[in-house]
């Protein structure tokens, strides 16, 4: 019997386990068995990866940065979703809120997601820093710390930030482009009332991370199986719709520079240690 590869995943909702059940069955049918190990937060998962309790980790972008920091850059990203590439975060304001340019945010309040959300907190704050606005000095941040530890996987923090903007408690809100599009389409957002003030440069989101020492042939074999998952195949589509992708792609690491800078500038992990 082939020893299954151990794949780590953070579960923010019990239904996420359905995705992994389908992936597990798919890999078994392809003759490349995996076993999923679930974690309640990314910190535990990164520790498990670094300590080799698991072979592969489905990492958030922040968990990737963390894993790289803890291993001295000795990790590889072997696969990611098509939708993980070139994401952007919008800074959204009310049309009648009196914020016409980024500089108008001086003295005002930005609603963000959870403290550890790359897309809804760390990256927009870094974007504003690069634009000359420093959080706490030039503007206030009203965080919405839902399910901290899950790196903003849960959309609740961004939704709370949106409500804060709509209610007038905040003057701007940060949200992932995919959420902006979804909420405009389903009526959650009235595009006549809100508008995009500014957007971050593109960044990448999750990836499957392995340690550099993980055998390259096993990583290649595993990735090849993953890439055989086809959206056109109805048996695969349920999982791909749940996970929000149309295709699995090779991993790349070029899209994490801004987040790495954000983590360094904010002293994120140093603060976490304290």
């Amino acid at each position, binding site marked *: 019997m082939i020893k299954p590869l151990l794949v780590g995943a953070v*579960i923010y909702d*019990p239904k996420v386990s*359905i995705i992994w059940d389908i992936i597990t069955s798919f890999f078994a049918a392809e003759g490349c068995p995996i076993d999923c190990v*679930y*974690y*309640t937060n990314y910190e535990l998962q990164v520790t498990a990866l670094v300590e080799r309790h698991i072979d592969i980790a489905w990492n958030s972008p922040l968990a990737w940065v963390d894993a790289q920091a803890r291993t001295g850059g000795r990790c590889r990203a072997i696969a990611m979703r098509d939708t993980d590439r070139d994401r952007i975060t919008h800074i959204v304001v009310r049309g009648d809120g009196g914020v016409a340019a980024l500089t108008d945010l001086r003295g005002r309040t930005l609603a963000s997601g959870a403290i550890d959300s790359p897309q809804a907190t760390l990256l927009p704050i870094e974007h504003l820093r690069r634009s000359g606005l420093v959080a706490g000095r030039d503007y206030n941040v009203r965080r919405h710390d839902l399910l901290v530890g899950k790196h903003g996987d849960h959309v609740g923090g961004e939704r709370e930030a949106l409500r804060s903007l709509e209610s007038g408690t905040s003057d701007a809100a940060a949200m992932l482009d995919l959420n902006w599009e979804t909420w405009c389409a389903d009526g959650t957002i009235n595009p006549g009332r809100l508008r995009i003030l500014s957007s971050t440069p593109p960044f990448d989101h999750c990836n499957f991370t392995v340690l550099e020492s993980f055998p390259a042939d096993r990583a290649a074999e595993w990735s090849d199986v993953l890439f055989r998952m086809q959206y056109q195949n109805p048996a695969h589509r349920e999982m791909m719709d749940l996970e929000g992708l149309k295709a699995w792609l090779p991993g790349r690491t070029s899209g994490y520079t801004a987040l790495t800078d954000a983590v360094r500038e904010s002293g994120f992990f140093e603060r976490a240690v304290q």
Partner: protein
Amino acid sequence: MSEDHLFPVRIQRTTGRLARVYARAQSFDVGSQASLRESDHSPSAVEYAIGALGGDLVCGLERAAEGQGILLHAIEIALNGRLDNILTHLGVVGEEGHPGFAAIDGTAYIGSEADETVIQRAWQRTLDRSPLYQTLSRVAVVTIALRVVR
């Protein structure tokens, strides 16, 4: 205390990751422990447990009503079960709590023209005599409201 009466049940693994339960001359399939999917071929063990409680109470109330000469047109019970922490059932590392039932709540709808006090009394007798209710209510908060529909 009376002499023990045993209720023998045999459970076998079958194909398709099912468990088949044999009880006297009947059998039924258990699809999983606690399914989160929209649909499955068979109910999960958790659903059977909640269903067994409801079935116990429906049968029990019917018997109690007959014994007291109460005419019931219809009995329907809607129940929701909640586990203490389903993530522990999934084996999520770092989660706390347990995968057992924390609460079961719902409503028993009784169609009857009988006096409500009489129905209440029959319902209480049903709860007192229910093996499932008397088991589950000792380990979880079981709250079932009674609503008489005229």
